[in-house]
């Protein structure tokens, strides 16, 4: 089966005057439709930079210096900027860690969801109808009323639900979620993860889940890729990685996770 996403030998450098730092070094990842791939690593491992590069959102001095990002049969690195705009939000969307900074504080949340639709060619009336549907889908009660709220009027968990509604607006086949629940309390995190699982099945989403938390990985991922210092050190099915990691670094990371007694 042709993979949905096929990242081949991706190499990213941060170029300074007279020197370059390789942030991502020859990373190869594939994802099938509907699959959840957990991308794990500590700060500086290159996991977020990889995600940004897939969406071509890397800011200078960061630069892709090698490799391909094949998605739905095209190399995203070769698309024009306007073709890429259609991909972002339309075919691949991104959920950030901090919903407060990712949402526009001066726009009603309903308008922000509608904008995600209209910017991909959906008519205004249709967009308005879909906003309520989407807020329902992310389990925001009283959706019609809530759609008129501004981000600051919502709790952290609700804002993250709005972000997810925006990400799902165009029913993209791939969602990249960068530490989507790290800023949330554990009970809210559990609700958001549960909802993501449900939406993933309902819309047959592939999810590239970037996290440092092996608990979140265990709950969500089908497969896991572990990054360290810009390199992929290990990749495999979730049970194999959690139970019998072969790389020394993965073993060390797992040992560092405070174990929860069996309940």
């Amino acid at each position, binding site marked *: 089966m042709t993979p949905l996403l096929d990242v081949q030998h991706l190499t990213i450098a941060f170029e300074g005057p007279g020197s370059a730092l390789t942030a991502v070094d020859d990373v190869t990842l594939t994802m099938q439709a509907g699959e959840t791939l957990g991308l794990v690593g*500590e*700060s500086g491992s290159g996991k977020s930079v990889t995600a940004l590069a897939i969406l071509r959102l890397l800011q200078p001095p960061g630069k892709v210096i090698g490799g391909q990002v094949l998605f739905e049969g095209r190399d995203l690195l070769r698309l024009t900027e306007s073709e890429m705009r259609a991909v972002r939000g339309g075919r691949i969307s991104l959920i950030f860690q901090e919903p407060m900074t990712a949402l526009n504080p001066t726009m009603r949340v309903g308008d922000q969801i509608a904008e995600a639709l209209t910017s991909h060619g959906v008519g205004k009336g249709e967009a308005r109808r879909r906003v309520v549907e989407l807020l329902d889908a992310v389990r925001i009660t009283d959706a019609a009323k809530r759609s008129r709220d501004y981000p600051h009027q919502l709790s952290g968990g609700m804002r993250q639900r709005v972000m997810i509604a925006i990400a799902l607006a165009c029913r993209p086949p791939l969602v990249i979620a960068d530490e989507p629940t790290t800023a949330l*309390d*554990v*009970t809210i*995190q*559990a609700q958001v*993860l*549960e909802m993501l699982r449900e939406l993933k099945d309902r819309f047959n989403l592939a999810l590239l889940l970037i996290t*440092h*938390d*092996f*608990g*979140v990985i*265990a*709950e969500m*991922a089908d497969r896991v890729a572990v990054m360290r210092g810009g390199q992929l050190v290990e990749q495999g099915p*979730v*049970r194999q990685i*959690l139970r019998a990691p072969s790389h020394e670094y993965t073993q*060390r*990371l797992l*040992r*560092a*996770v*405070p*174990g*929860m*007694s069996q*309940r």
Partner: protein
Amino acid sequence: MPLLEVRHLVKHYTRGGGLFAPPPTVVRAVDDVTFHIDEGDMFGLVGESGSGKSTTGRCILRLVEPDRGEVVFRGENVLEFSRGRMRLARRDMQIVFQDPYSSLNPRMRAGDIVEEPLIIHGLGASSERVARVKELFGLVGLEPAHLRRYPSEFSGGQRQRIGIARALALNPALIVADEPVSALDVSIQAQVIELLLELRARLRLTYLFIAHDLRLVENICNRVAVMYLGKIVEMGDAQALFRNPTHPYTQALLSAVPRLDPDAPRTRIEFDSASFRRETPMREIGTSHWAAV
């Protein structure tokens, strides 16, 4: 006699209000909190944001003045202490903050940061202080070469070691550790936790360990209290509490923690905040185990 007894501690904040604003609302950040810590305890105070766990820690050190209650340290209520007497008491009670990026003065060298409490408290001649700072650096696993560096030259884990060395400078008996590892990467977390445990044994320290990470608390604490909206809802020996969580909020909190086993059954318990009754008193539900049920 316990090292620390907190009795009926209360801290309320008023939010909003003003000439044209809606009437102010009272936030019961800490609402009649009572617990004690014995010498040598690693006491975990657990809760989510807004539970009042950090405010409780700060009230104990009087970094925040509580409205009511008692904080009895070695038999004396520190809330009645004068400023001068409180300053002396702080030699025995120190705090380690969550964020090693914002809690260290960026313009001071690491050695000076650790020495500062000694100067403030007028302890030792200059040469003695220098020797003490060197000793503290060794104690927390920093090199003598680090003494003259600035905080920005250190990694997060190293900065937290500087924060710990500073807290240890005055040879305290009690350390309030307020989410000391939450800002750190997992592998670094493990190292800092190891250091805290090692120091506990070596220096006979007692910790109030404030955290939101239940897995961590279960692993390192011998006694635990769970806070929700300013109240302790459950408290006890860590083993008893984690084996038999009884308050519905504790159950919900524990069930929300992601399991490391992908095949573990997901049985999440939701806590209905509308069912929460602040006035429910704590009662003993087992050996060394209390819950407000």
